[in-house]
Every structure is written in structure tokens, then in C-alpha cells.
């Protein structure tokens, strides 16, 4: 027994850790600095948007509001004027929703089937087709801006929401197809073969085998498309008319309006409102996003 006592007298169990080691100070110090750096603009925006104009003019942009007012938010949403319309961002918001929802659904639906077909149903020239598709993602948008105007005009879709939806769907195709193709290529081929022996066809395998295994990559595609299409300005301003301008264009028109006093508080509120949708999407699906990006990156 004495021996056991001796053996147990030394250090034992988990090694104690100091909270304030140099390593921790460095680590958390840098993290806090980076956080401040990124959060400061947001702080300024939110604080300014909660102040009345007299308080804004004092110029203390970092200080919290003395008197909190939500009037700028209300104005940004429903009263600010752009051109002839004075119904604020709300019109742009609903336009953006009407543009984003079908564009996201359509582009993801087509791209996922593309990726699935390119991996599992190889046809003659499928690799060439894929290469051409990927090449498309390297061409600057500006080159295609005017030709697309003509194409849409000829198709009678110029200046309509559906025209813009089609443009978004096409421009999302290269990167989304790449994303889905790489993800599907990480699903074992034998699974696909087994399903074929089990008598499932092209759509049967896609819906019953591939889709249920691919939730993470669908979330990634969803986030990429929602943020990308929501934040789009160029296509929105080129291919639609003022009635149908998306939120980003509306925001620009409010912030850059030349007549009258610059209402910084309203501008800040409008900007935060516009950025809210992508922000919410990130927060809700952040974990899946990271997992999906990693999963898609394994093979390629």
C-alpha cells in the first residue's frame, strides 16, 4: 500500500492551465482588435440611425444617441423619396424578394442537376462542356452587359422581372455547377451503381439518393445565391426599369439624391435595412455553410 501511496504522490490528471498566459493574451488581444475593427462601422451606422438630425450635426459619430428616435428607420422604409415615388425602401425590398426567390430556386435547381449529370451520367463531350461552362465564370460581366440587353429585348423580356431572373440564373450557373459537381463527385460511385441495379432512373436517383445526401451543399448554394443576387446592383439597374428596381438600386437612389438636405440618419437606417437579409441568412445557416464549403472542397 505504501508503494501505491508513493506512486500517487506526483502530478496526476489533466495539466492545469493558466488563464493569463502570454499565448492567451496575444490570441484574445488580436481577436478583440479584429472584432472592434469590423464592428466599428456597424456601430457608427446603428448609432447614427437612431439619432435625430440636430444630434447628427454635432458630429460625434461614435457616441450613442442622447435621445433615441426610430423616425429615420420609418422614413427609410416607407417615406423616403426616389424620383417620383415616395414610398421609401419598401418597394425595393419587395422587388428584391420577387427577383431573388425565383432566381435562387431556378439557378440551384438547374445547377444541381447539371452537376449531377456531369458526374454520374457522363456523355460524349461532357468534360468539354464542363470546361466551357467553367470558362464562363472568368469572363467579366461588363463584356456581356450589352449583348444581353439585345437578347432580352428580342425575347421581349427587357425591363421585366423575369428577364432579370433569367440573367441571374445564367450567371450563377458556372460556379454553382462546379460546386455541385465537386460535391456529388465525393459521393461514392458504388451508391449510384447500386441505385441503378435497384431500378432507379435519372430523376429517381437524383431525388431519392443524391438530394437527401447533399443538404450542406444546397445550403452553401442558397447562401451564395441569396447574398449574391440580393446585393446585385449592376444587373438590377441595367435590366429593369424604375418601378422594378431592386432594393440596392433604391438604396443608392435614396442615399445619392441631390436635392434637399442629406439625411445621414435615414441613409444609415436604409443601408442597415438593405444588408439585413444577407446578414440573417448568414446567422441562420452559418454552421452548415462552413461544413458545406469544407465538404465541397475535399475533391475537385
Amino acid at each position: 500500500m505504501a508503494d501505491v501511496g508513493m506512486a500517487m504522490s506526483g502530478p496526476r490528471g489533466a495539466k492545469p492551465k493558466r488563464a493569463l498566459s502570454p499565448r492567451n493574451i496575444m490570441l484574445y488581444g488580436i481577436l478583440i482588435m479584429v472584432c472592434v475593427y469590423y464592428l466599428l462601422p456597424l456601430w457608427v451606422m446603428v448609432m447614427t440611425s437612431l439619432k435625430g438630425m440636430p444630434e447628427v450635426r454635432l458630429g460625434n459619430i461614435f457616441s450613442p444617441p442622447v435621445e433615441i428616435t426610430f423616425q429615420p428607420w420609418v422614413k427609410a422604409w416607407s417615406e423616403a423619396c426616389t424620383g417620383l415615388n415616395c414610398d421609401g425602401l419598401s418597394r425595393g425590398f419587395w422587388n428584391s424578394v420577387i427577383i431573388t426567390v425565383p432566381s435562387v430556386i431556378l439557378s440551384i435547381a438547374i445547377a444541381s442537376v447539371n452537376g449531377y449529370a456531369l458526374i454520374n451520367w457522363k456523355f460524349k463531350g461532357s468534360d468539354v462542356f464542363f470546361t466551357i461552362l467553367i470558362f464562363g465564370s472568368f469572363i467579366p460581366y461588363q463584356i456581356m452587359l450589352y449583348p444581353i440587353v439585345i437578347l432580352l429585348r428580342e425575347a421581349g423580356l427587357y425591363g421585366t422581372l423575369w428577364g432579370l431572373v433569367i440573367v441571374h440564373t445564367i450567371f450563377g450557373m458556372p460556379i454553382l455547377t462546379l460546386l455541385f459537381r465537386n460535391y456529388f463527385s465525393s459521393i461514392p460511385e458504388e451508391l449510384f451503381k447500386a441505385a441503378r441495379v435497384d431500378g432507379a432512373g435519372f430523376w429517381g436517383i437524383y431525388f431519392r439518393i443524391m438530394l437527401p445526401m447533399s443538404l450542406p451543399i444546397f445550403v452553401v448554394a442558397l447562401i451564395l445565391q441569396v447574398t449574391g443576387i440580393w446585393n446585385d446592383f449592376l444587373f438590377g439597374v441595367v435590366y429593369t426599369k424604375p418601378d422594378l428596381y431592386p432594393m440596392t438600386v433604391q438604396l443608392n437612389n435614396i442615399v445619392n439624391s441631390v436635392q434637399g438636405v442629406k439625411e445621414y440618419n435615414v441613409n444609415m437606417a436604409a443601408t442597415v435595412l438593405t444588408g439585413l437579409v444577407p446578414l440573417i441568412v448568414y446567422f441562420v445557416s452559418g454552421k452548415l455553410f462552413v461544413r458545406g464549403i469544407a465538404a465541397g472542397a475535399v475533391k475537385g
Partner: protein
Amino acid sequence: MGNSIEVKDLTLNFGSVSVLKNMNLDVAEGEFVVLLGPSGCGKSTLLNCLAGLLDITDGQIWIKGNNVTWSEPSERGIGMVFQSYALYPQMTVRGNLSFGLKNAKVPQPEIDKRIARAASILQIEPLLDRKPAALSGGQRQRVAIGRALVRDVDVFLFDEPLSNLDAKLRSELRVEIKRLHNQLGNTMVYVTHDQIEALTLADRIAVMKGGVIQQLAEPLEIYNRPSNLFVAGFIGSPSMNFLKGRTIEGGRAFQFGATRIDLAGYDGGAVLERDDAILGVRPEHITVSTTPVPGPSIPAEVEIDEHLGADSLLWLKAEGANMSVRVPVEGRLPPGTKVHLGLDIPKASLFDVKTEQRI
């Protein structure tokens, strides 16, 4: 009894690469045929062609008297078991088993009946409502076999089904597959690179290399009378001893270094006199003695002595060539011992070096 599978002049090219060359293979009803060969020999490719998962370049495939060359995999009357199990991860075991039947629009009562039967044969009843992730490797492979079983087909195709399992489980499932075959009497085509699986399971073995069947015969025939040098070297562990020499005296004897080996009793064709010949003898068909034996014997020296438990392997040097001999445990000899080797000529094989064929 008719043939269950007939492969006629099957050719498969990937671009300019020829993978299967003008292959012919008949598998009788209820027969267990093993396709055996090193990786890249085309054995899995042939199986995928049979299953309809690869489009062939030329030739025909008949299953059960139907020309299925252009048929979909599900219409060929086959069930397939894959190396990686290939269970659908999002479905329960029951879902995995019923997936193919639902696709074929089999009525639900019939589905339930078939699943119950397969589950009882494979003893997986308690697992039916689990997901594949909650199963061990052996259980997963049982479910994979079950998926072929419920299809109620005549032909089972196995693509290295045991390669992902550990040694103990592998031998257990091997016996189980054999039992399944005896019980069901289905035609089975089984791909493996493991010769023990091939020798134990097969009614006939097709040894493949380079997209060509080298020999198609019963396991013992393949083991005892390999048709060429490749088959002789591939089957058996440790592999056959190859003694390079020439045949003399009109084919009555074999000259190996300084030793003349009488070929009386050789089981084969006309030996004739050949300048380049190889005498192949399996490690267990050589006797070792420390004193000169009557008749011709090869002088050799023990280099290494390996203890295998049931018996022992002696690695020797004879006339500059390495040889291995299987001896009983009590026959072990320390390295450096000078010995004399006697060969069991009726069980040996002679090969022509130029054609590589058995004489």
C-alpha cells in the same frame, strides 16, 4: 442444364485502351464462378459489364436465355453486392431493402414478405429499423447481400464484397456466402483478388490478366495443373518454385544446374527436348532430407526458417535459385544446414519459357 450467363466475344475499350479482349465465358445454372486476378486485370470491369453498368464496345451478353446486351441493369435479373456496401445512408435497413422493389412497383405485402425472408436468412431481423451508420461492417455487408436477395433474381454479382472487412469477419462471411449459395442455388459471379476466397468458394475459377481469361477451371485443377506461368505464379502462397533449366534425353529428364531430374510420372503433354523450360513445384511438393536420398536430388542450403504455427516454411538456396519448402513443424532446420531436396514430379508443372504455356 442451360447456361445462366453467356458472354460472347465481349470487347470493351476505353478510348484507345483495350480493357476486355474478345472474351467468352459461360456460367452454368447454379454455378459459383470466381473471377480472380491482380488489380487492373479487368475482373471488376467484366462484372460491371454483366450488370449493365458499363456499355460494352462489342459482343453480346446473355442472361437466362435473354440477350441483355443493351438492357438496363434493373432489367437483367441480377442482384449486385459492392465492396463498399453502397447502402443508402439516409434510409433504414428496411428502406434499403425495399428501395429496388418499390421502384419495380412490387405490391407492399409482397415487399414485406420478401424482406422478412431475406432478414431471416441473413439474421438481420433486429437491425431492420436502423440506419446503416449504426451497423458494423459485417452487418452492413449482410444488408447489402440482403438487397440482392430481395430482388428474387437468378444471378448474384459480388464485387469484392469482403475486402473491406477484417480477417476474422472475412472468413465468417465467406462461409456464410458459401452456405447461402448451397441454400439458394443461385448462379453467382464473384470478383476477388484473394485466392483463398477463390479457392474455397468457387465451383470454377477464371484467372484473369490484362483483360483476358488465362484459365477457367475448377479450383483444384487450377492449383495442381496451372495452364501457364502467370496462373502458376499467381495461385498459391508462397508461390510455386520455378526452376529454370532445360529438358533433355528426348523429354525424359530435366536438367537443373548440375542436377538431372527424372521426369518419369509427369502429368502432361509431350515434353520433347527444349532449351528453355521451367519446372514448377509447389512448396509442399518438395521433401527435405539432411542425408542424400536415393535417386537424383538437389543439393541446397537453408537460409531462413519461418514458423507459421501449423507448419513451417524453409527458404533455401539451390543452384543459385531461391526456393521455399513447406515442412512439418518437427522438420524445422536451422539456417546454414545443408540439405537434399526431392521433388514430387507427378504433381509438378513444366512450362515452355517462350510460350509461357504448360507443357
